[in-house]
């Protein structure tokens, strides 16, 4: 059974490596071990009878069946395992980078712009809230977060497991300023809270990115990952325990987003977005659609800045750092500054997304910023193919859309009975899907890299040459 001889073995089968006799003997040995294992676990079963006494029940037929199954299975395996069969199924060699690389981003962009109105037309107002808010806005938040983390992990090659900390900094910056500071100082600005807090949240998160960057400058790989993980947890624990500022695990009620100062709903009957423009329909739908376009604009800003930066010296320095840090230093690149700018840019975008999250939820508490969030964002970046914006966006749709779609598993009750809770299997299915996708495309959906500058003709670079970075 040589590993190299694939393909030529199909027409004529070589003789089995073992004789029938040897196979039977080996299978008997396996059956013996199986019996040894089955004896205490399967054969002897204890049950409680009606008077709560423990009684011993024997299950000889089940035991015999299992042992026989092991015997037959092993026997057949030994006799047939050497036969090389043609692969029953090959995954299609889909490559977003080569197939339709030109049109994909533009078609995707058009679809994104039309999405709210399409869902309004197709699903009606109540369905539109679900599709626009639960799917559209939710996915775009993760697209933005993953694009931000992509700068740190995908471009600069620094493994950051605590990215959610910057998301939390952004969300709490918005919550604290919008819910406490502005009402207490200049209440006139109340309706503008989100637009005032957005840049502040971004800058504060960037500052925290630099604060995290300094201690981890000398760390690489696993050590870097662990320290960033700890940083994420520290931020979350501070948010829980600094009750005076953050209201602890009860969280903070935040004002909702406004249409540039114009509220969508007004309990006191003031001017609202729909009354000013004379729009019919549910104000909640208006708000969902506005939230959708806001996060779309923010995400596109991230994409634009990232694409621009990749073509600037700082972006090339990030990628060079991922490729070879020693070579960078031999060429006079200040690797300290390069790492800090990567951390700061990634954190800036995380902070902007955080402020948006706060304004969308109307409520922030530390539960939203657990390690699972960091892990999900990192999974999106890795699944998308590190460094590729389109790949990461597609991965966010697959991962977040998939998780959301898995909420709708009620049909499984028809198969497994009413007691079955499909929600519990959500993460199991999601995990299995991740494993399958990573086997299919081990370097992510888009593994190749586009050069940042071209002399003769632009070719994408095979993923095999591109380094993953080592912190």
């Amino acid at each position, binding site marked *: 059974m040589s590993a190299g001889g694939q393909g030529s073995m199909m027409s004529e089968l070589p003789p089995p490596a073992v004789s029938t006799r040897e196979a039977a003997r080996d299978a008997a040995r396996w059956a013996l071990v199986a019996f040894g294992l089955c004896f205490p676990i399967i054969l002897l079963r204890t049950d409680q009878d009606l008077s709560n006494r423990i009684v011993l029940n024997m299950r000889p037929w089940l035991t015999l069946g299992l042992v026989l199954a092991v015997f037959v299975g092993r026997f057949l395996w030994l006799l047939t395992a050497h036969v090389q069969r043609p692969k029953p199924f090959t995954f299609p060699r889909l490559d977003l980078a080569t197939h339709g690389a030109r049109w994909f981003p533009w078609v995707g962009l058009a679809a994104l712009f039309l999405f709210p109105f399409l869902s309004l037309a197709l699903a009606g107002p109540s369905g539109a809230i679900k599709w626009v808010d639960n799917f559209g806005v939710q996915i775009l938040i993760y697209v933005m977060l993953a694009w931000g983390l992509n700068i740190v992990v995908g471009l600069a090659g620094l493994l950051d497991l605590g990215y959610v900390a910057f998301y939390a900094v952004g969300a709490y910056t918005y919550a604290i300023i919008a819910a406490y500071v502005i009402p207490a100082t200049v209440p006139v600005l109340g309706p503008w809270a989100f637009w005032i807090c957005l840049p502040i949240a971004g800058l504060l998160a960037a500052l925290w990115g630099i604060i995290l960057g300094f201690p981890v400058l000398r760390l690489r790989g696993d050590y870097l990952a662990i320290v960033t993980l700890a940083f994420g947890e520290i931020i979350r624990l501070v948010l829980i325990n600094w009750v005076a500022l953050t209201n602890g695990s009860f969280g903070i009620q935040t004002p909702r987003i406004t249409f540039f100062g114009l509220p969508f709903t007004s309990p006191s009957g003031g001017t609202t977005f729909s009354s000013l423009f004379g729009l019919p329909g549910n104000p909640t739908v208006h708000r969902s659609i506005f939230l959708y376009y806001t996060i779309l604009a923010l995400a596109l800003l991230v994409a634009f*800045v990232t694409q*621009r*930066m990749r*073509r*600037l*010296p*700082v972006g*090339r*320095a990030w*990628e*060079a750092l*991922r*490729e*070879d840090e*020693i*070579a*960078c*230093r*031999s*060429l*006079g*690149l*200040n*690797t300290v500054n390069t790492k800090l*700018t990567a951390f700061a840019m990634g954190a800036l975008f995380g902070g902007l997304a955080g402020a948006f999250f706060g304004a969308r939820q109307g409520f922030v508490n530390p539960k939203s910023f657990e390690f699972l969030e960091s892990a999900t964002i990192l999974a999106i970046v890795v699944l998308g193919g590190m460094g590729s914006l389109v790949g990461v966006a597609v991965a966010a749709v697959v991962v977040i859309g998939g998780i959301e779609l898995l909420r709708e598993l009620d049909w499984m009750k028809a198969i497994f009975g009413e007691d079955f809770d499909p929600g519990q299997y959500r993460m199991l299915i999601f995990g299995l899907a991740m494993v399958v996708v990573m086997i299919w495309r081990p370097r992510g959906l888009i593994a190749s*890299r586009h*050069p*940042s*500058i*071209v*002399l*003769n*003709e*632009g*070719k994408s*670079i*095979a993923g095999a*040459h*591109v*380094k993953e970075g080592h912190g």
Partner: protein
Amino acid sequence: MRWLSDPLLIVEGLTMRFGGLVAVRDLSFSVGRGDITALIGPNGAGKTTVFNCITGFYKPTSGLIALSTDNAVDADAVAALTASSRRYLRREDAPDAGGLFLLERMPDFEIAQKAHVARTFQNIRLFPGMTVLENLIVAQHNPLMRASGWSLLGLVGAASYREAERAAVERATSWLDRIGLIPRADDAAGALPYGDQRRLEIARAMCTKPVLLCLDEPAAGLNPRETAALNGLLRSIRDEHSTSILLIEHDMSVVMEISDHVIVIEYGLKISDGTPESVSNDPKVIAAYLGVEDDEVVKAEAEVGL
């Protein structure tokens, strides 16, 4: 004898200790401006350690490494700068201006950025996932970073930055032309054959406009034809650019053919220093490379009283 009359770099009393191991012991030599200087010695003699000290990748245990870009290294100026707490003294008229640099005090990236000492590595260190052109553009990071206004001008697409980038591409193209890699400019550097990668690494180092180029075994793994081409390239770098070369090499055809000055070290100590002819006739060098007869060892031991 330019290394005595017009030294670009002087190394004095350089010692590098790794725990109990003394890799380089009280080594002194100088590198002449416009020379090709070869540092040779048997395996494990400490050549790469000397390189790493000069380029800042190791902090020497003790010793002085001074580089003067504009004029010969002046002992008084070095003494004055050493007495101060500064790492270097530069003319103020240009961002890239020359001056006097105490390399043992400077971190590695600053040596490349300010003192303009570039290096290559024994095991090639390109950016394998970036294209050949990108490798040469990254080497021009510092001037481009200034031109992009620390990214702010670049983000808004300022014309001054686009102009600077065009100039950087032009410089890269001229180097690609010299090493014959124009047709492969848009291929991943990691996809090039070995010999091309070696030459690309030298071109990348040259794109930083170095005054001193340190090459760690540039001919390792090259065939005779490629070695001859390398000799031509190194000579042209010395003659056409104001770049001096310091190289470590085992291939004697390279060392003897192109060097102006050869320094031989063994067990971290300098055993010979001079022109290629004088070094190749030095009995200590011959002994270090070829070994000596047993009776000569006895004679030598008797001389030093063992």
